């Protein structure tokens, strides 16, 4: 089984801890994982802002970088949704524009091999207890892509419920969008901020030490809002919780 990590451009540049956590976790579970350096970005921001033609080279790059791997695992729900929902559309549109089937074939080849981390753990490896230890109170925000586009369902919560020492606090209004939305966060900053403030309030009200998601882009917005509001709750990617063990506990950036 050849497994590649698609770390995503956001994690590569801003949240390398999350990438390291995925590597640690998978290796602990006996999975050998590669990082093909030709990878960069799935093209989500370009595509969702309307720049489909600017996205096409990134679709090709993704396919080239991960050629030959059985599984492409990524700690980002929205990037998986980009590949799964939008790569086929990009292929279809290119074909409709008389530019052949190349992109459609690329989409067909990468879509079935691309997995969000919790999908890979639960569906491919068949584990829900990954032997993690995280002695903190945690609330889980499911994210729109995780909830509605990928339909992750109970996978993340199942994984969290087996983490030793972790106390899960239910998040009110969990299914509501945090307001990030990529370029929406700056194009419609007022509405995005209002949504973020409501999400932050719900999170703070749980009293949890940490809020976790399957996506650091939402977490960047949520964490940035929480910090500005002076909240004590810290953003942590789910992978970092699952990577944490009693021997090698999560080295916190301020978890109480």
């Amino acid at each position, binding site marked *: 089984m050849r497994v590649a990590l698609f*770390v995503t*451009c956001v994690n*590569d*540049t*801003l*949240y*390398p*801890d999350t*990438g*390291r956590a995925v590597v640690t976790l998978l290796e602990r579970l006996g999975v050998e994982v*590669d*990082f*093909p*350096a*030709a990878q*960069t970005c799935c*093209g989500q*921001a*370009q595509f*969702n*802002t*309307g*720049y*489909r033609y*600017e*996205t096409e*080279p*990134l679709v090709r*790059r993704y396919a080239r*970088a991960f050629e030959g791997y059985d599984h492409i695992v990524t700690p980002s729900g929205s990037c998986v949704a980009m590949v799964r929902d*939008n790569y086929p*559309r990009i292929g279809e549109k290119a074909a*409709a524009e008389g530019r052949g089937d190349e992109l459609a074939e690329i989409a067909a080849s990468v879509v079935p091999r691309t997995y969000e981390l919790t999908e890979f753990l639960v569906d491919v490896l068949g584990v829900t207890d990954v032997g993690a230890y995280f002695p903190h109170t945690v609330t889980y925000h499911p994210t*729109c892509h995780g909830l*509605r586009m990928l339909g992750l369902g109970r996978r993340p919560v199942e994984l969290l419920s087996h983490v030793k020492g972790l106390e899960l606090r239910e998040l009110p209004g969990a299914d*509501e969008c945090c*307001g*990030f*939305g*990529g*370029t929406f966060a*700056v*194009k*419609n*900053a*007022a*509405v*995005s*901020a*209002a*949504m*973020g*403030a409501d999400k932050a309030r719900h999170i703070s009200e749980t009293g949890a030490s940490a809020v976790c998601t399957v996506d650091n882009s939402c977490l*960047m*917005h949520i*964490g*940035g*809002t929480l*910090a*500005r509001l002076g909240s004590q709750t810290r953003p942590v990617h789910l992978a970092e919780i699952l990577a944490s063990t009693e021997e090698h506990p999560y080295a916190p950036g301020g978890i109480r």
Partner: protein
Amino acid sequence: MSGGTYLGMPAFPEAASESTQNKQLRANLTHATHTIRDKRAKAVAELADWPQLRAAGAAIKNRTLRHLDHYLEQVEAAVEAAGGHVHWAADADEANRIVIDLVRMTGETEVVKVKSMATQEIGLNEALGEAGIRAYETDLAELIVQLGDDLPSHILVPAIHRNRSEIRDIFAKEMGNWGRPAPDGLTDRPAELADAARLHLREKFLRAKVGVSGANFMVAETGTLVVVESEGNGRMCLTLPETLISVVGIEKVVPTWQDLEVFLQLLPRSSTAERMNPYTSMWTGTTDEDGPQTFHLVLIDNGRTDTLADTVGRQALRCIRCSACLNVCPVYERAGGHAYGSPYPGPIGAILTPQLRGTQSKLDASLPYASSLCGACYEVCPVAIDIPEVLVHLRERVVQGGEVTLRGSRTTIKPAKGHAAERAAMRAARWALDHPAALRGGQRLAARTRRLHPKRLPGPGKAWTETREVPAVPAESFRDWWQRTRGKETK
């Protein structure tokens, strides 16, 4: 918001940044939308076959739209056979002219109106007003909007942005200018407000000789029109006047009564969270000595055929105007309906308005961006319109331009103005992302200068740092860590 016109409204982000600051509006909307969205979820959960109903609704609409020419001619023939008259209007102006002429032929100078989205879309009340004909809205919420010289902000509950005490003030102040005044000492108790409206409207129902309506559905096989409502005021307008004029979008047709059955299950549960709506009025042409003796059907296109020509965007024509997507939309909840600058607010407005009106104006070009793409609208839509997909498709049209159909002919449109800096940034980002060495160079530069990064950014970054901290750039990117610790790179 006042003046009853959408002309000259600012782009969505500007309008929304103002309305999000309005605490009263936010509170009204949050309360109202959360109440109805919870009720809808319960009403829908009662039906085990909801997914199948939803799929059937989408499929029936798709098939009808594919053969729309056929079904429309069937409607025309059936309505005429039943004693009605059918008129075709290519756009809003033509539709308004037709209705004005029809009212003038009766010699009347006032009409009573059933709540209708199509007549708002074409600005019929204003056009009638200019022609010296007074149109009276009779739906309770539309009455509140009309008396308040206001604009609707929701498809189903147009006065959702008003609370009880505001409504009381509007009734007390304005009813007298439009007909029977509000009783003295009117309070904001709902029963009293409803009573005042009933007395005010009853006078109009009994006097009016002409009624104007829209329709929720037209059944092609018999030429029957259907209006679904809660109050019964629509029923009054549809039965009491001598002449009835119905203005209906061409996409409202369903082929058969069996098809209608699907929508009469989907619509009330999605819309008002009712198992069945209180009043369903149906009429087929005219009937001797029963109801209006003259019936006119005005079929409007007004951008629908152009929309139909777009293989991705056409799904918006499946819409049955239930407003479920508004009620779950986090952006609508905070921005309010007026920010969308058309009678169609919320997610459906964000995909319908730029198709019906085009993306030329600043406002219309901003609508496809009025969404975080959270997908809640798609999830609840009873005819499975993938609104996020259409939003992104229309964003492409805004920034890339491309082939569209305008007034029936294929045209290539240029990208909208005002996106030059963004386009350059997207291109630069794409270049760097297609050259991993350049990406790495950028990451290292950012890491080296990380202590110097400001907490508050200027320019477009300001929109982020107004309310959010920026993430700290790490000392080492993931790819550098991998190379340092794992030595070799694969590929």
